């Protein structure tokens, strides 16, 4: 018996069903499934899930994130990826060879990097890795933060939304799964991209988001 309708807003502790079919954002006590977050219910044949309205980023293995180096140690970098704690990037997990004690020649405090969460330990400590051609040090320093729960809207179906923004503004954009978005381009292009991203952050529930973003970008372009 499922107690809720699809797309209903629920608060924590709402009884969702008694069929042990809870998925993301739910917890069960006995057979009963309760909501864990304040968020929207999604019901399908596989079960009930709740997607929260606001969320906090906790690293998971395989996430591709954007982080800021806060410290270069003798054998590892300490990176802030917007999780509750800092994570480490070992000097063996990068594409280039490093000598002990001179890591800040390659990446120093304040640099942005695009990396992958390699391992997450039981106590939620995590290690990053930059092995592979995909990952690199980001050349400029412009980032915007978006709530991780809104990232699907920012990216859109098969990347439709993000490629629209890229096309319209001629910016390079990388979206980290921790909600950090890196933007590179000319100053006015960046400003346009940021306004679009902030618009999505505020209006993520709007069903015709793509059209409104297209219109917004057109208006911004005409002004400049």
């Amino acid at each position, binding site marked *: 018996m499922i107690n809720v309708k699809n797309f209903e807003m629920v608060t924590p502790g709402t009884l969702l069903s008694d069929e042990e079919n809870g998925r993301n954002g739910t917890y069960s006590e006995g057979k009963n499934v*309760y909501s864990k977050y*304040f968020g929207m219910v999604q019901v399908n044949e596989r079960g009930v899930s709740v997607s929260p309205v606001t969320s906090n980023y906790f690293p998971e293995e395989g996430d591709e994130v954007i982080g800021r180096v806060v410290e270069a140690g003798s054998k590892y970098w300490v990176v802030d990826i917007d999780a509750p704690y800092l994570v480490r990037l070992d000097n063996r997990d990068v594409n280039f060879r490093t000598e002990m004690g001179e890591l800040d020649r390659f990446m120093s405090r304040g640099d942005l990097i695009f990396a992958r969460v390699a391992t997450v330990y039981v106590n939620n400590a995590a290690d990053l890795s930059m092995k592979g051609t995909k990952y690199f040090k980001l050349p400029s320093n412009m980032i915007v933060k978006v709530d991780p729960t809104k990232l699907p809207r920012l990216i859109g179906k098969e990347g439709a939304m993000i490629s629209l923004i890229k096309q319209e503004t001629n910016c390079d954009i990388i979206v980290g799964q921790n909600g950090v978005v890196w933007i590179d381009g000319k100053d006015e292009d960046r400003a346009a991209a940021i306004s679009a991203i902030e618009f999505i952050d505020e209006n993520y529930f709007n069903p015709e988001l793509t059209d409104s973003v297209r219109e917004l970008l057109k208006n911004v372009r005409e002004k400049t």
Partner: protein
Amino acid sequence: MYEKRLDNRGFDELRPMEAETGVVPNAKGSARFRIGNTEAIAAVYGPEEVKPKHFEKFDRGIIMCKYDMLPFSVPDRAKPGFDRRDTEISQVITNALSRAIRLEEMPRSMITVRVYVTQADAGTRCASLTAASMACADAGLPMRDLVAAVAAGYIGGSVCLDLTKDEEDLHDEGATDVPIAFLPSKDEIVLLQLDGKVGHEELNEVIKMGKIGAMKIYELEKEALRRRVSNES
């Protein structure tokens, strides 16, 4: 005998309430809760790294609540800073909230909850707890349930709900104040304090009365949280 309440309310009637979320833009989540002349504002920050480091738990998160009464909240000026009463209430709020939040899902992190009482007219710890739980839900923390807290009492042979300061001070009638906090959908009590004198059976009735009030507050909390989303749309 206490047959008619000082402010002409029914014995099972709450003072007019108001709830709102998202009042502190810089916080991760925030809420304001007003009941009668009592008002509390709560702000939630985190989860973030634990500081001081020795409080860190390797298998679960910790929660730190700070309750503070602002100087202008009471008729006599309250001294700024934490006094003994503030520390006690901070502790009972922390205990109640750590039953409501699923801390085991965020090991090694800390959640900071700050509660400020802007107006006090009895029942501040209940109002604070209610505001704090709404703020936690607003911040997107994994929770078992919201907390609904209300003070019930026993004055001169009758069970009352949501006492005011004037009623609490009816010492000649043997006024007893019982703040209770529930996890409403779990039917669990997370806070129960008693200030005064009351018999066994009467206490059971007081708790029953508190539960009726808590359910009403729970409905208001849910409505306030939902309104936050519909406002945005």
